[in-house]
Structure formats: C-alpha cells, structure tokens
C-alpha cells in the first residue's frame, strides 16, 4: 500500500502537466491498442491504472492484463505521446529488446514516429543501427522471436543478427530448435555464424559440420589439444592462460596408496606426451 501511494504521488507529480485526474469510467478502457508489454508494474494492482484520453477514446497505459473502471486519466496530445507515456511509466531504461520491438510494431501499426519514443541512449545514439535492427527483427521467424523474448540478449548480438541473411537466420533458428542453448552459448554461436557467414550455407544446423567450418584453431593448437585430451583421464593437465605461458597445472585424486601408485605410473606413461607439448610450445 505504501509503495502504491508513493507511485501514485510520483506519477501525479511527474505528469502534472498532463492534468491527471482520477476518474471512474462507464465501461472499461481500451487495453489492446497500446499493449506492448506483459510486465506487471509494481504497486499498480492497487492503484487506479494510468490511462490516456485521445480523441475521446480512453487507452490503458499500464497493467494491460487488468481490466479496471477507475483510472488516473492523463491527457497527452496524440496516440504517439500516449504510447511514449506508457513506456515512460514503466521506465524506458528497463524496457527489454523484445518490448522495444513491440513498441516498434505498435508504432508501425498506428503510424507513429518511433523516434518520438523515450529511447535510451544506447538506441538514441545509434539510431540508424537501432532502426535497422527493429526492421530486421520484424522479419524474424517465431522460434527466434519467442526465444529472444524470453532472454535478455546483448545489443551487440542482436546487431549481428540484424546483419544476417535469411539463410543465416534460419541456421540459427535450427540451432535453437536442436540445442536449447544457454544465453552465453547462443551469443558465441551467433558470433561464429557472423564470422564464418561466407563459409556456411543453407539453414540446416549440423553440429559436426559447424564445429569443423568454424574452427578457428591453427594446426599446432589442434595438435596440443589432441595431446591434452589424451593425457586427461586419471590425471588432468590444464594451462590456465591460453598458453601465453607454458605452465601446466596438474591435478589428480587418490583415496589409497594403490591409487597413488597408479597415478605415478600414469604420470610416467605420459612423459613423451608432455615432452611433445613443450616441443610444440617451443619450450623444450
């Protein structure tokens, strides 16, 4: 209750120029025309919901899943300002990419200039790239769009997607469908598709083919990887700084003297492999 009062007070102060009044409606406000988010707005389940009156019609500006007859009625000049107001009520800096995409779609539907929205600096300062991204995202398929809606994807990754052709987008969609990746894996995968776009063809993702085509490792690096994988069984050898130094960190676990003795034998057996690694590193 305290929170809702604070929000009400802040809202009335912030939007005082728009003549806010608390009003009970005959019927309910239009909840669909400006619905751009599914988010719950803290405190407004108790508050009268903010709404805007434009050309005699009343549009709900927040808490779109809740029907109400009592609203705080604001009076923006037009539907574009009403949408901008709605975004501002939630806080433009808190709006996710998927939500901005919804705002962009609403602007297209309602013939609103997207640039009048309260865009955060990362979009405002790179407006051309931002507009290109939203235009591209309008064409993305449902699988990709749904996934992006669930995750908070970094803008740099989204910008890479915006530059991709339909085949690449299809390829990424197929990867999503086949692997259910983490956000980190998705980001790295998108970067690999962007970097090797000229070598990837079609929209069917095959893990083995992808690994081979996008392998950045030089022959000598692959050779070292191979030896390390051969060594790493009972004991593990790890270089912790991407081979900028030659330090190998060895680890193993023993639970009795017999196991210890077995590890000693293993360490002896891998001596030639270790020598081969240091020869490849040039430190032999």
């Amino acid at each position: 209750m305290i929170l809702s009062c604070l929000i009400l007070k802040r809202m009335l102060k912030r939007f005082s120029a728009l003549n806010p009044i608390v009003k009970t409606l005959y019927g309910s406000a239009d909840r669909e025309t400006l619905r751009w988010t599914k988010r719950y707005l803290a405190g407004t389940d108790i508050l009268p919901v903010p709404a805007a009156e434009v050309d005699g019609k009343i549009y709900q500006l927040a808490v779109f899943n809740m029907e109400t007859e009592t609203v705080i009625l604001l009076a923006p000049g037009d539907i574009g300002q009403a949408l901008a107001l709605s975004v501002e009520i939630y806080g433009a800096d808190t709006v996710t990419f998927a939500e901005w995409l919804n705002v962009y779609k609403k602007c297209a539907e309602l013939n609103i200039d997207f640039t009048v929205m309260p865009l955060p600096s990362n979009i405002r300062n790179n407006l051309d790239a931002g507009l290109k991204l939203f235009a591209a995202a309008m064409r993305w398929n449902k699988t990709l769009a749904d996934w992006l809606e669930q995750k908070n994807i970094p803008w740099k990754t989204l910008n890479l997607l915006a530059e991709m052709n339909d085949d690449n987008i299809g390829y990424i969609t197929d990867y999503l469908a086949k692997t259910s990746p983490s956000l980190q894996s998705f980001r790295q995968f998108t970067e690999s598709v962007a970097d090797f776009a000229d070598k990837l063809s079609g929209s069917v993702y095959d893990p083995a083919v992808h690994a081979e085509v996008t392998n950045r490792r030089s022959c000598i690096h692959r050779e070292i990887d191979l030896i390390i994988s051969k060594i790493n069984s009972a004991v593990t050898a790890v270089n912790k700084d991407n081979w900028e130094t030659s330090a190998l960190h060895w680890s193993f676990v023993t639970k009795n003297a017999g196991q210890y003795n077995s590890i000693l034998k293993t360490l002896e057996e891998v001596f030639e492999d270790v020598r081969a690694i240091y020869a490849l590193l040039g430190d032999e």
Partner: protein
Amino acid sequence: MIHVEKAALDSPIVNKLERENIAYAVVERVEDVPDRKSEIVVLQRHENYCRPCPGTKIYRCCGYYTTDVMEGCPFDCSYCILQAYLSHKNIRVSGDTVSITNSLKEIVKQGIPRRLGTGELSDSLALDGIFPFTLLLAPVINNQDVIQFEFKTKSANIRNLLGLNPKNIVVSWSLNPQNIITDEEYATASLEDRLNAAKTCAEAGFKLAFHFDPVICCNGYAEDYSALILRLINVIPEYAVEYVSISAFRAPSLLIDRMRERKERSAILKGDLSLGLDGKFRYFKPLRRDILNDMLRLLNKHWTGVFVYYCMEHASVWEKNMGNDPGEKDEFEKLFPWSKKHNAGREDAYVVY
C-alpha cells in the same frame, strides 16, 4: 567537411586554411559536429600533447612517446584500435600549436634521448596537405639534439617532407602484403606506393622505419610476408633504415566487437585468437612466435645492421626468437640506435645481455 571551433579561429592551422581558400564552417563546440569519419574539427585545447605510449609490463613495450596532434584517421582499417580507443568517429585536429611545441620542448628539457611521433592516434601524413604538422614540427625537432621524431603513415603523402631538413626525422610506413591492404586497410596507399614514397624519402636523406604491424595470419600468410620482406629489401637501401618492428595482431575485446559491427567482415575474426595476460586477444602464442621468428630471420639475413624489435610481445617470445629479454620501457629504449648514439660513452646507459 572541415569545422573550426570558435576558439581556434586564430590558430596558425586555420590561418593556413584561410590563405589557401580551404572552406570550413565555424562551430561553437566540437559536440556540434556530426560524429562521422568524414568530418574534421579544428579545436583549441591547452594540454600536454606528449605522453608515454601506453603499454603493459607483461608484454614488452619500448619507451616511445606519442605526440597526439590529431585524434582520428581518414583511413578505415578494419583492425584499427581507434575504433575502440576514441569516443568519437570524427577527426579532431589541435589548433593550439603553441601548446604542441611547448610540450615538445618540455620533453627536451628532461635531457633524455627520446623517440616521439604523431602516428599513434592518427596517420601522421594522410592529412598533411591540409594540416601541415610536418612543417610546423620539423624546425622544433631539428633544433634539439635529444629527440628523434617519427612520422608514421600508410599514405604516400610525402610532398611537405621533401622540402625539410631530415636531421632528426624518421619517416615510417606500416606494411602489410597487398592482399591484406586491399581487404583490411581501406582507403590507404597501395604497397607499391608506400614503398616508392619510402624510397624517395631515403633519397632525400631521411631515416626510415617500417612496421609490420599488425601481422595478420590469414591464408598463405607465411609466403605473403616473406614476399613482402623480399620486396622491401629489393626497393629500400639498408643504410636508410633506422629500425623495423614486427608485431602480431592484438585487440581488446571491445575492438573485436567493433570489428564485428563493420559492414565488411574482417578475415582476422576467423583467426586463432585467445585472451592474453593483459586482457587483449592475440594469436595463439606458438603460431605468432613462428611467424615473428620467420620474419626476423629473413630480415636479419638481408639487413644485417638494422635494429629489429617486437612491439608488445611477451618476454618469452623475445627470449626464444632473439635470445634476450629487452626488459621494461627504459631498458628496452636503450636498444634503439638513437639511444645508443646518444648514450655512447655513458657507462650507466647500456644494458648488457
């Protein structure tokens, strides 16, 4: 388009624009200028223009000083660090020539032999036809005995230089095989144009330097760099060469992001890059150690008296390829011919390996 900040209207740089009828627009502040590479702004800033070149202790760095008279470059190399380092895309030229020359004089006052240059935050010669810093700086440089000044370029724009006394000046070129120049160094001079310009400078009495930086490991790179070195040796006389640097590509992660944002995707992004000890991506160490070694051997075979060094490379690569660790900045700097010449006879000035 050239813009001039109101405060810089009386600067010699702007007077020169007036004399030559070069059009410009006056702006209140640099922030009023669109942030595009095609926009040049002359500013008036009173600051120290000479600073130590940034480096890390982990990767060996020489004692070079930068003289940042310009921020931003008309060229558009895919790998350019300025994309990550500068907060603006437009080119900012300092009109405060008094502060620039005073900064140089402050360095001279220290009495320590120093190498400096303008090629860190811009190309030294690309815009020299419009903003002739060579003409401005040469008299100051040549009037001092402890500084050697380097103009570093990827252009062939040497017209102003040719009328100057070459005394304390080194003119240097960044070199890469022509296929890399074509694919990665947009709007720069061709390899042959760079080499011909260097040869002309050598004939005019200038000392030269060459920077194989960044060495890029793309398809067929070993053969391409060998051919490049042989071409260099064929065109340029050894006596004119003061030093040569070789350095593999390295980049902070922000630069990698910037490179990915570019319309033309760089082949560098397909390389075997891993995070180094200083937080920058570098080629896998054995890979770069081998190409740096091959290039060093080939250069040493033909140019036996030229000082060759690695820029920002790990001590272990130096030890493996060169047989020594150059040490940190001050020690490293003493290996350069300029320092050796000036420190001759001073027992404390030598590093013994």
